[in-house]
C-alpha cells in the first residue's frame, strides 16, 4: 500500500539538510505553510536557499525562519511588504542575499524545473536592470532573455485537503505557487487541513496529482499569518 501520510510536522521535515534549497508555497499569507516552516525552525537546518514570492511578515512563518538566521539566500520577486521587517535588516547586514526575479519568470522557472525543461526564453525584463548580463536572443523581431529552470531539494506546501497518495486540492488564491513548487522539488511535503480517504477527491478536480508529493501531514487548524502578526506572536 502507498501511504505518504506522516504523523507530525516534525517528522515531515526531519531530514532537511543544511544548505538545502527549499521552495515554500504561498503568496503573502495565502497558502503559506506556517506550521511546516515552524517545524523547520525547530529542526535546525541552516544556510538555506529559500524560494518564495515574498519574505514573510511579522515574526512568524517565513519571517521567523529568516529572523532565526537560517536563510542565506532568498529567491523572490517582492521582498517588501507592509509588515516585512525581518528581511530588510538581514539583507542590509549582508547575512541574507537576494536573487530578485520577476514574478512571472519566477513561476515559469519553477514550472520548467519541474517539467524537465532546462531553459526557456521570456520577453519579461528585457531592457531592464534585471535583464542586464542575461543572454539575449531575437525571435521574430522581438528580444527575449534566456532563463533557467529552477529546482529544489524540498518544497513545503499548504493544501486544503489531501489523500494518502498525495493528491492535493487548495483553497482559493492559496493555490498560487504551490502546484509548481510541488513539481520542482525532489521531496515535496504537504500540510493539509484534512487528509481524506482515498477516492474522496474527485479525479477531475485534483490540482496536484500525488506523483509530485512525497509526504502529507494533517494540520487541521492552520494559523493565519495576519492574525498571528496582529497578535504580536513571535516564533519560536
Amino acid at each position, binding site marked *: 500500500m502507498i501511504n505518504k501520510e506522516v504523523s507530525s510536522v516534525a517528522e515531515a521535515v526531519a531530514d532537511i539538510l543544511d544548505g538545502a534549497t527549499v521552495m515554500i508555497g504561498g*503568496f*503573502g*499569507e*495565502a*497558502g503559506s505553510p506556517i506550521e511546516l516552516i515552524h517545524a523547520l525552525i525547530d529542526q535546525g537546518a541552516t544556510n538555506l536557499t529559500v524560494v518564495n514570492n515574498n519574505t514573510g511578515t511579522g515574526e512568524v512563518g517565513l519571517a521567523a525562519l529568516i529572523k532565526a538566521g537560517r536563510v542565506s539566500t532568498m529567491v523572490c*520577486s*517582492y*521582498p*517588501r*511588504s*507592509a509588515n516585512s521587517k525581518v*528581511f*530588510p535588516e538581514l*539583507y*542590509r547586514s549582508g547575512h541574507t542575499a*537576494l536573487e*530578485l526575479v*520577476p*514574478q*512571472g*519568470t*519566477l*513561476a*515559469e522557472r*519553477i*514550472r520548467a524545473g519541474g517539467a524537465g525543461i532546462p531553459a526557456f526564453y*521570456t*520577453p*519579461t*525584463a*528585457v*531592457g*531592464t*536592470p*534585471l535583464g542586464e548580463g542575461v543572454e539575449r536572443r531575437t525571435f521574430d523581431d522581438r528580444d527575449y532573455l534566456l532563463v533557467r529552470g529552477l529546482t529544489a531539494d524540498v518544497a513545503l506546501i499548504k493544501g486544503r485537503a489531501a489523500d494518502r497518495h498525495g493528491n492535493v486540492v*487548495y*483553497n*482559493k*488564491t*492559496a*493555490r*498560487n*505557487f*504551490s*502546484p*509548481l513548487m510541488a513539481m520542482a522539488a525532489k521531496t515535496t511535503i504537504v500540510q493539509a487541513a484534512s487528509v481524506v480517504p482515498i477516492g474522496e477527491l474527485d479525479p477531475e478536480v485534483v*490540482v496536484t496529482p500525488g506523483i509530485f508529493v512525497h509526504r502529507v501531514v494533517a494540520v487541521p487548524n492552520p494559523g*493565519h*499569518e*495576519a*492574525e498571528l502578526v496582529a497578535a504580536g506572536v513571535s516564533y519560536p
Partner: protein
Amino acid sequence: MAQRCALDIQNGSYVNLGIGIPERVAAYVPQGREVIYHTENGMLGMGPPPEPGTGDPELINAGKQQVTANPGAAYFHHADSFAMIRGGHLDVCVLGALQVSERGDLANWSTGAPDAIPAVGGAMDLVAGVKTVYVITQHTTRDGEPKLVESCTFPLTGLGVVDRIYTDLAVIDVVEAGFQVVELSPGVSFESVQERTGAKLIPGGTDGS
C-alpha cells in the same frame, strides 16, 4: 484620473489593475459594461472587498488585500496566471509610474536608491505581455519634477510598453513621434501641461489641445 481611465475600459475586457490608484478604476467602469478583473496571484473574476467579517484570508488580490470572487470566477496557479499575462491574453493593465519616457519606456519599480530593498513583483511581466498598458500618475512628483520625460532616469520596468497616460492634467498617448495630448483636464491649458512635462508634447486632442 481613475474615472477617466475607466471610460476607456471596454465591455468584455480582461483587466489587471495595479495596486493603489489603479485599483480605483474598477469603481468607475460605466454601467452596462461587464469587465473581468485578473489578479496575478491567481484569479479571474475578482470582485470587491468582502463585507466585514465574511472574508477569507486566502482569497486575496495582488496587493494582499481580501477580495471576493464574482460569479464566473476561476482560480489557477501562478504559471497559468502569468501565461495569461505573458501570452497576451489580457486586454488592459493599469499601472502607476515613477517616470514614463516619450518612447513609452516605463519606470515604476525602483527609485534606484542604493539602500532600498529592490522589489519588482509582476510589473515587468505585465508590461511585457498585456496588450494595452495604461498608466495613471500625477503629472509631476511632489517636488514638481516632471514624470513624463525624454528618457527615464530611474531603473526601467519595460521598454516602449506604455500606450496611454492619465494624469491630473491630461490624457496623453504615446505615439510613434512621442507624447500626444488627447485630452486636457477642465481648465488646464496645453501650455501649462507642456511646462510640467520633460519632453515635447504633440497637440492631438479633439478638444483643441
